[in-house]
């Protein structure tokens, strides 16, 4: 139990051959089971690379990525991913979109046909959790951007991943919808046994949601600071207007401004 779920040790990742850009260098990060970690940093700091390394979409040239006690050499299927772009498939209904991962993941795809009703019930329960009850038979284009993103979260969670990777999932949404979805994510994390890594530009988002905020440097990216977020859970949106909250956001902002200037 003591070993972290994700352990990134001294990782270098270079794109495009030996003379390509060095995206991350000397990256070290540990993520414990059940933890909610937010990764922030100046743009181009290799946050997306961090996601791809953790999920096994990229294999680093140097160092090791260890997920669930084994070194990552190919895509790890214990993760769910969600991006800023919801990428719902327009020819499938919302429910069919959410069931898509089950048609892929080895341990589910063989059971899917015989246990269809069970999985559909599970998907509908997830839809209810994110506030989309009854929208399962709508097509994605009939949903608003915020609703599509909620459905996207359901798709990322349907196969009960141990690790949920979110890459700026709320970047394209308006402020009110974003705050609503923060609460959705907060409640998902509280109610399910899942470890979450959230990559974001929004410092308030990171402080409101995470247990630990990781600050990365400008390219080549590495971790320059880790902050435990001291606020009690469950957190309410009122927290956003408290001085201690804003102080922490401001401190993070200062650190990133310095990291940007260091380029």
């Amino acid at each position, binding site marked *: 139990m003591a070993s972290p779920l994700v352990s990134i040790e001294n990782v270098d990742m270079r794109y495009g051959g030996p003379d390509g850009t060095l995206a991350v260098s000397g990256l070290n990060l540990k993520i414990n089971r059940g933890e909610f970690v937010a990764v922030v940093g100046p743009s181009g700091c290799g946050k997306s690379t961090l996601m791809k390394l953790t999920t096994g979409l990229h294999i680093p040239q140097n160092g090791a990525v260890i997920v669930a006690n084994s070194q990552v050499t190919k*895509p790890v299927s214990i993760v769910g991913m969600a991006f800023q772009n919801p990428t719902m498939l327009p020819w499938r209904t919302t429910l069919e979109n959410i069931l898509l*991962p089950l048609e892929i993941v080895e341990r589910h795809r063989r059971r899917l046909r015989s246990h269809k009703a069970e999985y559909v019930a599970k998907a509908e329960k997830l839809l209810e959790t994110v506030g989309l009850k009854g929208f399962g038979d709508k097509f994605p284009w009939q949903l608003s951007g915020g609703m599509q993103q909620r459905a996207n979260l359901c798709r990322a969670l349907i196969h009960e991943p141990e690790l949920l990777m979110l890459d700026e999932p709320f970047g394209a949404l308006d402020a009110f919808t974003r705050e609503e979805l923060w609460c959705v994510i907060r409640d998902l994390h509280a109610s399910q046994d899942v470890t979450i890594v959230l990559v974001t530009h929004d410092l308030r988002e990171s402080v409101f949601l995470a247990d630990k905020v990781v600050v990365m440097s400008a390219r080549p990216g590495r971790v320059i600071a880790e902050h435990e977020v001291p606020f009690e859970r469950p957190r309410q949106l009122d927290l956003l207007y408290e001085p201690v909250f804003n102080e922490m956001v401001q401190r993070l902002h200062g650190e990133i401004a310095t990291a940007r200037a260091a380029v």
Partner: protein
Amino acid sequence: MTTMETPTPVATAPKPAFKLDWVRLAPLLYTIGLFVIWEIGVRLSGLPHTILPTPTRVFEAIAQYWSPIWKNSVQTLYTTVLGFMIAVVAGLGIGLFIGWSKTIYAGLYPIMVGFNAIPKVALVPILVIWFGIGTVPAVMTAFLISFFPIVVNVATGLATIEPETEDVLRALGAKKMDIMLKVGIPRSMPYFFGSLKVAITLAFVGSVVSETVASNSGLGNMMASAQSNFNVPLVFAGLLMLAVEGIAMYAVMAWIERRMTGWAHRSTMGN
């Protein structure tokens, strides 16, 4: 909503007189308009029938020669549709093959472009050497000219899968085959059905070119022999029949497209 209540209820009162749907009628009216202008233009300029016949003279020719026109129209429709159907099967297959991998796409694409740049009329003599004159070269020419747009569209649909979608699926352990079946092929279907409209009109070009040069039947052959007899109204009658067949087949393809991939018209593929 209250601001919508304007003080002029008269304007919103339903009109009892039936209203013409001008947009629906436009295709018919414009077609009639074209024939009227043609008719008046020829009559005023006094051009002889052997240069440019009037539409009435062309319709007369259609009625007069109806039996051979019908026979040859059916023949042309048959060669065109047969060639087109071969093009659909081959185009879909080759398109999926090319779109499968970046390497195959890069390697075969220039060859396909080069092949498409060859005027198909130049291939007809070769086809005649191989298959003799008649139906086979016409079908082959229709096939050769119409399969390229299908290949390009299917391959493009496959090659433009959003990288995020691919990442999400690959992170779950999806194989190339899974991604193609779940995302690539359904996603390329709107491109495929869209290309059918282009392909069917090109197929007519192919079959008629081949019939003109190397056949004893079909509208192309009929027009060629009418032209050598200075029977210009019959030439125009053949052109008119081709136009009618082309419009009809195009409409069928557009209908199939709407039926099969209605979702693509209500959503934006890019998002």
